[in-house]
């Protein structure tokens, strides 16, 4: 604890120095180049269009601001009591000239609102919502607490993407990496120059999928499908985050998209398919307990640790402990090999409604489920001794 505190103090001190240096203008220009004053470089037609419109609007409103308040500041300087200005008595426009003075600004504003801004905005909206015309492929994105699932319906590839930044970096116990909080274990790969129709949904609460360089942001609403489209024009890695408060780890569910040439995309897809086939083949053989424990630990550390914590102690009072848990230490299956309601296996497979405990059978494969259940029953001092085979999980689906 004490070392953490010193470390924090050190970081605060460093930040103060950085700030003082920045304010004094002595910071090296290399560091200053990191400042971003505007949207990040756009890589899709929508993002490019949005940046253009945004820049134009910013100029328009800056001019409005300067002109209007220049008049006000002029008045504040000129019409002071201390400079002997005698107050006028008028309470409204008198005479044609003053009426023109009063009405012209509204004419201009009407023009700005509904022509200058209104017309490009109309086209931008229509373009943004046109997800279907000439769409080349579909990507389905499902938000869940606190990770994203990606699915390529045409090829059946489906995987979960979770943040890969180590917890030690967040707790300031380790140096933060370059892509701190914006890195994941499984990147989404998309072909460049293809119109990708993205279907969005969520399993628990509302999540918002946002990659700033794509210029799109759309909510995934549980029980509904939403859609947007992207056409990535530059190869590269693009990072974003969930943008709708979705509970505890809202700040820790990044999005990483890799845009690659089509050939590379197809090759990647084939690798993923092969991986998936191997994983599902795994559920047909019999696994040893040690194998399951090793695999289960890996799954646990990705899927479960955010709520149930490293040592299975949970986070009171919302996220229950697994260590010594009555549910975990309860019977595995009924004597006939059937699922027992509200048992450990039931919870992992079907979740608990109204909580962050989700139905993992929709996101994990049989092997992963069997492994993580086995792990939870035998780790954290639970030592239950029993274990479950992937084939048994398959039968329970």
């Amino acid at each position: 604890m004490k070392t953490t505190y010193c470390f924090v103090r050190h970081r605060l001190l460093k930040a103060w120095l950085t700030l003082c240096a920045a304010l004094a203008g002595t910071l090296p220009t290399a560091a200053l180049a990191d400042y971003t004053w505007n949207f990040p470089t756009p890589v899709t037609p929508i993002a490019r269009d949005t940046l253009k419109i945004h820049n134009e609007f910013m100029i328009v409103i800056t001019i409005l601001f300067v002109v209007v308040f220049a008049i006000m500041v002029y008045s504040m300087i000129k019409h002071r009591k201390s400079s002997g200005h005698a107050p006028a008595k008028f309470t409204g426009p008198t005479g044609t000239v003053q009426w023109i003075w009063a009405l012209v600004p509204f004419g201009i504003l009407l023009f700005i609102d509904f022509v200058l801004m209104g017309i490009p905005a109309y086209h931008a909206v229509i373009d943004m919502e046109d997800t279907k015309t000439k769409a080349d492929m579909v990507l389905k994105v499902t938000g869940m607490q606190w990770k994203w699932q990606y699915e390529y319906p045409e090829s059946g590839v489906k995987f979960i993407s979770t943040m890969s930044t180590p917890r030690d970096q967040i707790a300031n116990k380790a140096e933060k990496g370059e892509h701190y909080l914006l890195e994941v274990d499984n990147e989404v790969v998309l072909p460049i120059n293809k119109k990708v129709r993205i279907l969005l949904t969520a399993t628990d609460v509302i999540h918002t999928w946002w990659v700033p360089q794509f210029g799109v942001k759309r909510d995934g609403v549980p029980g509904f499908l939403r859609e947007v489209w992207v056409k990535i024009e530059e190869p590269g890695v693009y990072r974003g985050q969930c943008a709708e408060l979705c509970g505890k780890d809202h700040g820790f569910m990044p999005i990483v998209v890799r845009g690659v040439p089509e050939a590379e995309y197809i090759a990647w897809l084939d690798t993923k398919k092969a991986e998936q086939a191997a994983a599902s083949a795994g559920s047909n053989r019999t696994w040893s307990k040690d194998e399951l424990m090793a695999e289960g630990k890996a799954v646990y550390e990705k899927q479960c640790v955010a709520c149930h914590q490293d040592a299975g102690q949970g986070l009171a009072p919302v996220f229950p402990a697994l260590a010594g848990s009555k549910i975990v230490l309860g019977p595995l299956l009924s004597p006939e090999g059937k699922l027992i309601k509200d048992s450990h296996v039931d919870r992992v497979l079907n979740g608990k409604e109204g909580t962050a405990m989700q139905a993992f059978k929709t996101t994990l494969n049989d092997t992963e489920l069997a492994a993580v259940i086995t792990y939870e029953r035998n780790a954290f001092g639970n030592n239950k001794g029993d274990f479950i085979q992937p084939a048994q999980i398959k039968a329970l689906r």
Partner: protein
Amino acid sequence: MSQTTTAPHDTHHDTHYPGGITRWLTTTNHKEIGSMYLIFALIMFFVGGAMILAVRAELFQPGLQLMQPEFFNQLIGIHALIMIFAALMPAATGFANWQIPLMIGAPDMALPRINNLGFWLLPPAAILLTLPFLLAVFGIGDGALNTGWTMYAPLSVQGGIGVDFAIFSIHILGISSILGSINVIVTIFNLRAPGMTMMKLPIFAWGWLITAFLLIATIPVLAGAVTMLLTDRHFGTHFFNAAGGGDPILFQHLFWFFGHPEVYILLLPLWGLMPHVLATFSRKPIYGYKAQVYSFIAIGLLSVVVWAHHFFTAGLPVGALLYFMYSTMAISLPLAVLFFCWIATMWKGAMTFETPMLFAQGFIIMFGVAGLTGLVLADVAADAQYHHSYFVIAHFHFALFAGGIMGVMTGVYYWLPKWTGHMYDEKLGKLHFWLTVISFNLTFMPQFFVGLAGMPRRIPDYALQFTEFNAISTVGSFILGFSQLIFAWVIYKCIKGGEKAEGRVWEGADGLEWELSSPPPLHSWNTPPVVK
């Protein structure tokens, strides 16, 4: 405006009052209730401010230093609810209580007992809202509302007891607001001095009148929405659950049907205040009185038909997107009328720059930033970038801090000598203004940039490229927060003593309230003045 009678000083009434706390619990006097509203608002302003300083301290650097995300999520939502419902709204109601009877020549508010009830509902509501923090310390529940003040379902269906506490708190606050609104409407419609037609009504009262109607129109919708949330949480209904035929977006529609007018509910009384202050310190009559009144009405009507621009990214049909975009843009027109009239009121006046005038002018310029950024936010396509980002946070703090809080400060400095009978410390007042305005910009300007760069709102930790702007913002927020202690000190000093204030405190002041002594007698306008 002129009057023919001055109020008799009937201080002998005081002798009937019970002493101590009972007096404050039972008072039906609009001045005393007004003072209680204002003091309550000031206290809650510091409570809400302390919460957000803790948040800013956490955001000073990347990484989690001071708190866990669960607690962070509680602080941001409760900060908003406190600032809106327990600081800004009570402050405006305090103004209404003190000023509307004085300004329209009424002896008191029309419904004095309702008035007392309206105030005394507030402390229990504030306690309900914050109690879960304390309960969590004793191991009961998981803390306060952790969904942000918007309480979007299904996250709020999933939440702990804090959500239930917030729901009941909102119900009580809503009842308090409706009672206050009914009182304002009845008072303005029935207790105006003889000869004061609606078109001679002080513009502050007009602003409040529209606010009162908006509150009565929208608070029941919010109350309905949170009640549906309550039944979804505990009684098996599925209003917001797709699996049972509901829709999570329904909650957003209902919430923002209240939430957008709420912005104008907070601002209209202050827009009503501005012309008085500007006219006073420009020594010139209000410009475009009628135009401003009609603009208030237009904004009031428009405000209830633009709500969905708060969730453009939720996936609305194209037709709805276009409608809500253009109707939102249309609000800029009546708002521009107000800006025009404010500047024209100053134009060719003989201005002096006492603290209330400084705050009024600061209000106008910075509220201008809110208005202009609001205009670009209306663009659906660009909004896809701004939405849920720090750009929006900066935008609405320019509206609700520079517009709301600084508007309240304008009113406090403007009327404090009238209320206390003493002049406030002008030097400290000006120091307070400059510190506030500079540190406010230091806090929120960087948030525009960090939002454009892609930082989402409501995150307890952030990527490294956002570090510098967040550090600046945190430094600004601490200066801003601590500068407000000067405000509290100035008010305290002014209540305790100071140079005697005249009845007409300001040279250019015009209106019935300035015909009374400072402070006015406990019962004023027992004989109504006649307005010609």
